Structures are given as structure tokens and as C-alpha cells.
């Protein structure tokens, strides 16, 4: 199980799970999935694509609306969570287990926050 207290967060509610060798798993946080409601579709990059910090790398659609996914890191996509493509509802069920892409040589965007900073950011956003 991934511990949400160990993750880094962007203001657009993506999380990063960075390992020591600079490979990173990317997902969206509980606040984002709850705001979107039932997620029914996800569009992700292909393995081998590069993602840029602060740029769109895909989109998720709920019944209500579409939201862009903004990459919190730069790097090369080495794995895509195919399970989410068949069952995007997993993002609602377990947002911190439902990683979307795995990126190698990942460089964090500026201004990512830890959990405590993110909590106060969300509090101020309300």
C-alpha cells in the first residue's frame, strides 16, 4: 500500500511517488477524484512518450466533465497502468493505488508540496 503521507503533490492535485532511482509513479489525489465524481474514461500517453512538468499528459472524464492531467514531473514514460483503461473507476476507489504512468529519470516540477502543505492548500482552496 502506498502511504499518502510519503507522496508529493501539485496544485492541480496530481501526486508523485518518487523512488531513489528517480523513477516516479503519477496519479491524482483523493480531493480530485472526489470533486470529479464517477470516473468513466482515461486517456494516457504511450510507453516511450516523454512528459513535461506542468504540461498536459492525458485526461480523465467523469460522467459530468473532462479534466486534463497535468504532469508533476518531466521524464520518459516507461509503463502505463492498463488496468485503469479497462476500469477507470479504480481511481475513485483507491486514488493512491491507482497510479497512471511510471516515468524514468523523473525531474519534479517546481512547487510540489508534501502532504501537510497540500492539506492546508486544499483548506484554503475551499
Amino acid at each position: 500500500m502506498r502511504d499518502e503521507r510519503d507522496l508529493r503533490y501539485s496544485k492541480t492535485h496530481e501526486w508523485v511517488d518518487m523512488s531513489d532511482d528517480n523513477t516516479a509513479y503519477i496519479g491524482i489525489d483523493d480531493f480530485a477524484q472526489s470533486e470529479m465524481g464517477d470516473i468513466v474514461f482515461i486517456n494516457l500517453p504511450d510507453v516511450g512518450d516523454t512528459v513535461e512538468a506542468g504540461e498536459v499528459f492525458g485526461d480523465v472524464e467523469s460522467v459530468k466533465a473532462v479534466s486534463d492531467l497535468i504532469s508533476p514531473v518531466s521524464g520518459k514514460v516507461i509503463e502505463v497502468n492498463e488496468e485503469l483503461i479497462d476500469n477507470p473507476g479504480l481511481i475513485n476507489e483507491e486514488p493512491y493505488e491507482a497510479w497512471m504512468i511510471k516515468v524514468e529519470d523523473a525531474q519534479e516540477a517546481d512547487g510540489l508540496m508534501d502532504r501537510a502543505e497540500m492539506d492546508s492548500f486544499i483548506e484554503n482552496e475551499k
Partner: protein
Amino acid sequence: MDDSEIVLKKTPLYDIHVKYGAKIIPFAGWEMPVQYKAGVVDEHMAVRTGAGLFDISHMGEISIKGKDSLDFINYLLTNDYSDIEDGQARYSPMCNEKGGCVDDVIVYKKGQDDYLMVVNAANKDKDFAWINSHKTDDIQADVEDISDSVAQIAVQGPDAISIVEKICKAEDIPENYYYACFDRDILGFDCIISRTGYTGEDGVEIYCPPEAAAPVWEKLIEVSEGKLIPCGLGARDTLRLEAGMPLYGHEMNDDISPREAGLGMFVKLEKEADFIGKDALVKAGDPKRGKIGLKVTGRGIVREGQDVYKDGKKVGVTCSGTFLPFLKGAYATALVDAGVRELGSVYEVDVRGRRVECEQVKSRFYKRA
């Protein structure tokens, strides 16, 4: 005017929505629940398989009474009301002179020279002004906007009737679809129980005084023993789209005629009375564009306002589109060149720069067994 200066109205059920954990959004000048804790998908499924409860108090109600009320209604609306019976409800588009839609409405005949018109919340003030602007001095009809004194609760789904039966007399529920029982007692309040709805399921819409809305809502929840799920506008929209029902501002508007919107069966060109828009509709002949249903066969969700292509050529634009929970797929409606329409044919929709393949299907995507 700045948006923040607009004071949104609250229905008499607002506090109950908050209590049940609703997410509140602005809609047509109202603060309305878009979904509750269960979420759009579960709320939608509750209506298809059990029962759902909706606050639709934002809808507008206009009373039309007097000697000329029937003639006036026949002049305002494209459908024919000449043979409407006491207690019956009838749907109709309301056209402008160009044949576009001012609104789509339901009119009930309460009794001799006594009618109730139910209109879309977003159009209520426009409709009231429109109706009054056509009420010349020689027309003897009293037109009154009674929206503030009417709340509305919809109970929809296969279990809806058995739940409503627990709070009123069995004979207070109309036996037939599109009929209503007027002046019926629920918890001591004077209510209308109408066998109508906007979900494609059996059920009723209860019209009641504002002070009755909260007690009736809570009583329905109580007697349902957990079967009745509160549903927001999100599920209301997915349910109506799945059932192939039009929504004003999407499938029709001031510039889309009812015949283009697939509502030709509610346009009675042959009726005795002249009506607003008739000349334009006759002159326009067979519509040059028409509504179709699309099932998304490629990957993605088609939304409203996206361009539709056939064989590489733009042929129209989508009206509504989302993921439909019961059918478990993405579907859309579109207005396309009439000539290209054919069930089973393949289209592409431009979804934010990506072409997504769709197949034309019947626009009544879901039909209750």
C-alpha cells in the same frame, strides 16, 4: 452585471439536500443538488432498478384560465389540445415565428377553462413574457406565474409507485401515463400527483405547496425503508439522455425547430387552429438537418458542441453527450445534415482534436422492458 451579484434561489428542500450530503451547483438561477454522496452512477442505477427521489422545484408553473384558455394554448403550442381530457397531461414544443423553439412544455387540463403549463426553469421568465406578449386584448385568459407557490418532487423507478402508495390513497395515483390527479391529500397538504417523469421509468411527479416539500420528501424516504435514493441533476441528465428525451438548450433552442429535433410527432400542422411558427414550419418543408443518436465505438467520451464528420466531411454538431451508466457506454445526440442519416452508418466526432468513431443508433438508447 457581475456573476457574484446574482442571488441564486433556493428550493424549499435546500437544507435537506445539504443534510443528505449533496454537492450544490448553480443551475438556471437556482442552487441545486447535482449529486449526493452515492454519486451520479449509483443514483442513475437506483432509478433504473429501484427508485430515486428528485427535487424539481426549480421548474416553472404557469396557470392559464378563462373562456379562451384552450384556444390560446392551441395558438401558443404546436401540439393539438382540442381533445385533451380533464386530468390529462400533454407535451408540446412552443415555437417562435421562425419555427424555432421558445421552450418545450407540459400542459395539464385541470378542468373546464383551467390549465397548468409546466416550463423549464431557465426559460420561465422568457416564456411568461412571450405568452403575455401574444395575449391580445380580445383573448379572455388569465395568465399567472405561480412558480413561487409550487414545489415539485419526482419519484421515479420500477419501485416508485409502490412507495408513493404508502403516503396517499391508491386511487390518488393516476392509472395511466400522462394523467394527473388534482387536489389530493398528502400529509394534509393539497397536492397534484402526476404520472409523468423525465427518466424513461414509471413514476410520479408530485406538485405541492412549498411548505409541504420537506415533510413529503422525508416521509417518502422513511416509508421506502432505504429503497428510495435521493438523486441530483447529474443523474436527471444521464437518465433523460439514455431514455432519448430532449433537453431545451441542447436538442432544441430558438434556432432549432421541433421537426429538426425529432419532435415532429408533437407538431400538428393539420390541426384546425393556427399556431405561432406554423407558416415558417410549413415553408421550411422537410427539415434539412435532423437529430440522430450516436453510440461511441472508439475510445473517448463525446460531449455537446463537438463537430461531427462523415467520410471526412463535417455534417453537423453534437447536442448532448456523456457516459450512460445503465448502458455502460458513451452516447451522444447530434444535429446533422438530413441526407446523410442512416442507422448503422459510421461517423467521427472531434473530441478536443482527436477523432473518435461513432455509429448511428436509435436515439432512444434505452427503452424500459
